[in-house]
């Protein structure tokens, strides 16, 4: 049946062609609907604050660290961050009890240059994603309760009673008239937002430096401008008061995030 075979072949060819046309059309429709995803038609250069996004996979990766391996890697961090995560310098953050997602994200931001530090960037560059998770798991396990046996120096500063009223109000109630949320809604103990550190045992000088950094845009690795929006609205007095309050250990009753 030469004629019917020819017909079938023609029909197949036609089918293949229409299928190809349909596929091409579908691709164009999808690209048209999602061109913005590829950055088409975006006039401004896109600014990305951090490469980390808290998808389930990232959270699983960041919290899968092995604390024992982390213990070995963290010996490199001792000199600045202290043997048990309490630093000897007021400019260096305490890492004891720090949520592992926080440590992992900051290491990733140092690695990608989203947060700049001449000290931390080369160190973070030498760590792989798994190493970061291990170190994060190690510091996460370090207790924040004071232990007379070890050499931790916290608190490094004492609070000024004048500052306590200002800071206490901001931490527990926030300021509705300016749209400032209470600090404890994200930084604990009453609520934690993924990626927000517990501030209960943080150094005052370091905290002040970070608030100033967020306010001026020097540090801008917060996802969706959370900290920048808040910090820019704090007055100088409030910034100092908050840093002192946390730095004096007045919020030490704060718990670590539960269930992570």
């Amino acid at each position: 049946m030469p004629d019917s075979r020819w017909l079938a072949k023609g029909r197949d060819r036609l089918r293949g062609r229409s299928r190809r046309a349909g596929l091409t059309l579908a691709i164009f429709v999808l690209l048209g609907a999602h061109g913005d995803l590829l950055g088409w038609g975006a006039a401004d250069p896109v600014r990305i604050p951090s490469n980390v996004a808290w998808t389930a996979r990232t959270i699983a990766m960041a919290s899968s660290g092995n604390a024992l391996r982390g213990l070995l890697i963290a010996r490199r961090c001792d000199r600045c961050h202290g043997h048990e995560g309490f630093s000897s310098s007021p400019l260096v953050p305490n890492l004891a009890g720090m949520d592992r997602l926080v440590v992992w994200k900051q290491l990733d931001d140092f690695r990608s240059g989203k947060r700049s530090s001449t000290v931390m960037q080369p160190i973070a560059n030498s760590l792989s994603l798994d190493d970061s998770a291990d170190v994060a798991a190690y510091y996460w396990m370090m207790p924040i309760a004071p232990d007379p046996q070890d050499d931790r120096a916290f608190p490094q500063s004492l609070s000024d009673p004048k500052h306590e009223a200002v800071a206490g109000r901001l931490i527990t109630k926030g300021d509705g008239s300016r749209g400032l949320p209470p600090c404890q809604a994200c930084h604990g103990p009453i609520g934690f937002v993924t990626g927000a550190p517990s501030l209960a045992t943080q150094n005052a000088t370091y905290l002040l430096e970070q608030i100033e950094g967020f306010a001026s845009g020097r540090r801008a690795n917060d996802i969706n401008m959370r900290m920048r929006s808040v910090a820019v609205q704090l007055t100088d007095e409030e910034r100092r008061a908050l840093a002192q309050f946390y730095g004096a250990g007045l919020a030490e009753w704060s718990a670590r995030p539960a269930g992570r």
Partner: protein
Amino acid sequence: MEQDKGSISNSRISTATHAEEHLAETGSSAKSVVRVVLLSLVLTCVWLTVRFPYEAESGLEYLLSGPNRINPQTLHLRGEFVESSLGPAEESGGGVTVRMIAEQYLFVPQCVVVPTGVPLRVRITSADVVHELTVNDTGDEIKAVPGYVVESHLEFKRAGEYPMHCLEFCGPGHYTMRSRLIAVPLEQFRLLSREARISCARQ
């Protein structure tokens, strides 16, 4: 002639039987094709559910469902809600689009300058839970739902400051989740830089 007729009818019959055979053949092959397609579809679904237990992560749903679905976890990485495109933007066809993110416990940008007497297209989405943007003076309410871009149209006749609250309980910081919208005449709006349009939040 008769023989010829006979041969023609014979050949017709033979073509008919061949055609039937061919039909049966194609029918069975079509059936097997359908079977393979269905099986691969089922296997793909099984693979997707095992590999991507969270639908939000597969990206497939977002790819197939159009521009008003969005992954709430990756707003800052790509799409129309990256931080450099937040806030009011003048459209080429006239009108102004305002893009905002609602998140625990802020509206970002927290203070927006918009022009009066111009139709505003507000596109808002949530980075975490459901929020509701409420303009106090006009009573306009816009839900912000994670995973979706909610578009709504507003217009401000009177210049001035419009406080906005969150009207959907969203967590311990809900009571201070407020933001402001400042309406100014269009000429004044046009003079402002992009930075100035979103940085009216005060100390």
